[in-house]
């Protein structure tokens, strides 16, 4: 394999990682601050993609579609938090899993009822379509570079929000001691709604960005949800920095594993079985990575709580 191809694959891994980060960031915030396992996070991702596709189809503007995805997912998140999630904070995790699983079914069938059973059309805006040539002669899709940039900007924004703003202080306080911050006169209900809506909005934005190069269909959020859980377990629950490092690790492992393992097996096996064995092993790699991280650091790379 040539050096250039390897660089291109590393870019692909990075880009996949950044896409994962957008989903995982919201999930880890909600899990860290509220101690809530939200299986319906993938549904919010789907709502974002559908809102973007519908808006882009009606107005012809991708940017308006992105804005709609953010607004629709955040609104859905706030609504769900006030109607359902609020009643679950004092229950154990099994109740939360059951209730949020029910939400997945409601959102999926609700979306089908509104938009029908066939995938929707959402495409990259013309200005961002096609490949650009990077130094060294690598041709790389401009849209994927944009996703990397947007993701890193959002990571920076979240980092500043958590470390430099009043809301960030409250979120961090909520993570370490929720009774105490309630006692200090902070409206904990409002804080929770805001955090949940923020996480939902991020998931929705990720859904819209990803939807442009994938299929906008019912159930698109669930595969992403599983990976996002892997990411936050690796990164450490509640840590934005952990989510970023974990996402990039998972993205790189998944992409490079899928490319390099079959190549390695081809050195001592015939091509057909090398492909079969290599791809089978590659699909386990991120879970092996997760197991190794958990053995070495049971709370994840940047997890604070035991």
């Amino acid at each position: 394999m040539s050096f250039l191809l390897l660089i291109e694959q590393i870019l692909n891994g990075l880009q996949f990682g950044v896409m994962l980060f957008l989903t995982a960031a919201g999930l880890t915030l909600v899990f860290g601050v509220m101690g809530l396992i939200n299986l319906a996070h993938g549904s919010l991702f789907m709502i974002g993609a559908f809102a973007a596709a519908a808006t882009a189809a009606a107005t012809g503007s991708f940017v308006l579609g992105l804005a709609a995805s953010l607004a629709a997912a955040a609104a859905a998140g706030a609504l769900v938090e006030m109607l359902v999630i609020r009643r679950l904070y004092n229950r154990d995790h099994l109740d939360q899993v059951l209730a949020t699983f029910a939400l997945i079914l409601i959102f999926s069938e609700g979306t089908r009822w509104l938009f029908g059973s066939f995938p929707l059309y959402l495409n990259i805006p013309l200005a961002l379509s096609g490949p650009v040539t990077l130094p060294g002669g690598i041709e790389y899709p401009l849209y994927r570079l944009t996703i990397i940039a947007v993701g890193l900007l959002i990571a920076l924004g979240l980092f500043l929000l958590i470390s430099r703003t009043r809301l960030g202080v409250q979120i961090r306080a909520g993570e370490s001691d929720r009774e105490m911050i309630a006692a200090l006169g902070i409206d904990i209900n409002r804080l929770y709604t805001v955090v949940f809506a923020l996480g939902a909005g991020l998931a929705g934005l990720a859904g819209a960005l990803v939807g442009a190069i994938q299929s906008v269909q019912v159930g698109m959020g669930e595969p992403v949800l599983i990976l996002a859980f892997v990411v936050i377990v690796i990164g450490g629950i509640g840590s934005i920095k952990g989510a970023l490092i974990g996402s990039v690790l998972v993205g790189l492992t998944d992409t490079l594993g899928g490319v390099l393992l079959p190549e390695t097996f081809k050195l001592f096996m015939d091509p057909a079985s090398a492909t079969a064995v290599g791809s089978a092993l590659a699909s386990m790699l991120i879970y092996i990575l997760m197991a190794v991280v958990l053995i070495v650091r049971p709370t994840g790379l940047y997890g604070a709580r035991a």
Partner: protein
Amino acid sequence: MMKTKSLLLAATAAAMTAGMALAEPVKVGMITTLSGGGAGLGIDVRDGFMLAVKQAGNPDIEVVIEDDQRKPDIAVQLADRMIQSDDVDILTGIIWSNLAMAVVPSATAQGKFYLSPNAGPSALAGKGCHPNYFNVAWQNDNLHEAAGAYANSAGLKNSFILAPNYPAGQDALAGYKRMYEGELAGEIYTKLGQTDYAAEIAQIRASDADSVFFFLPGGMGISFLKQYADSGVDLPVVGPAFSFDQGILQAVGAAALGVKNTSQWNKDIDNAANKAFVESFEAEYGRLPSLYASQGFDTANLILSAMAKADVKDQDAFREALRAAEFDSVRGEFKFGPNHHPIQDIYVREVVQEGDVFTNKILGVALEDHADAYAGECKM
């Protein structure tokens, strides 16, 4: 008393005017996917099937429809209930090969007919064939074999091939390689349900391939095509119809234009039955039919043709009537091989734009009167 008598009279009159010699009603149990990610396919099969039933206006056919949610365990439960409590005569409807493998062998063993409107796993075409199992669509490998044959005739000599790593994906690559005579520039198994193909597209770019063959059904194909179109790689793409059906094309948009794909059906096949089908489907449901809808439509018409000739309770006679396949298939010529799988023409289509709608048009025949590779292993 008076009322019952007149009702009876009316019923008899209706039966006579409908020309029904055999009054024994037939109960059909349809298990198909109506919710979740793959629902578009099941809905098309159901709508095509019910359109044919409606057009026939035959009061002796009753259809029970249930949603399997694309889950084998639910499909098995539904089949058990339909066989044991609903007492159906014929089962049909299953889309996915893994669900078909869970349901079909036990249903046929319990003396029911199973008519597949879609899934055609090789196990049921070869050693596992059964006198009561008919496949009205295709054996799984067929469309891929046609793609391989088309690649030869188009002069493609170095294909890069990819499919998901699961049984139907392995069948797909095997089917393509069975007919294709050129070299392979690369062979990749992707993950089932994978949505990002950047790594695979980079490998295609780096290889010296002259074409790409892929089997990625449903959402996977949409993702691949959009990303491939945006990558700047412009090698010709060949695939089976599953990534280019009417339900998917609108979501892919211009990225699919010009792609060659293989199918046993298209809306422009020139025969009266097909013209009537396309027109009436569009009038009834407000959308163009897909190949899945055509398969559902043919399945129902096959059942109706057998009902006109034999009583379903007389299994041997009914089986013969099914095997004769004397109905006007929307595919034109249609007959069953010795293993009850179709022998049919498979076409090459090209994705085109008609007004605002993306659809397919036929370029030519890829394989004429094509039978599957497993018929020889079937002993019945």
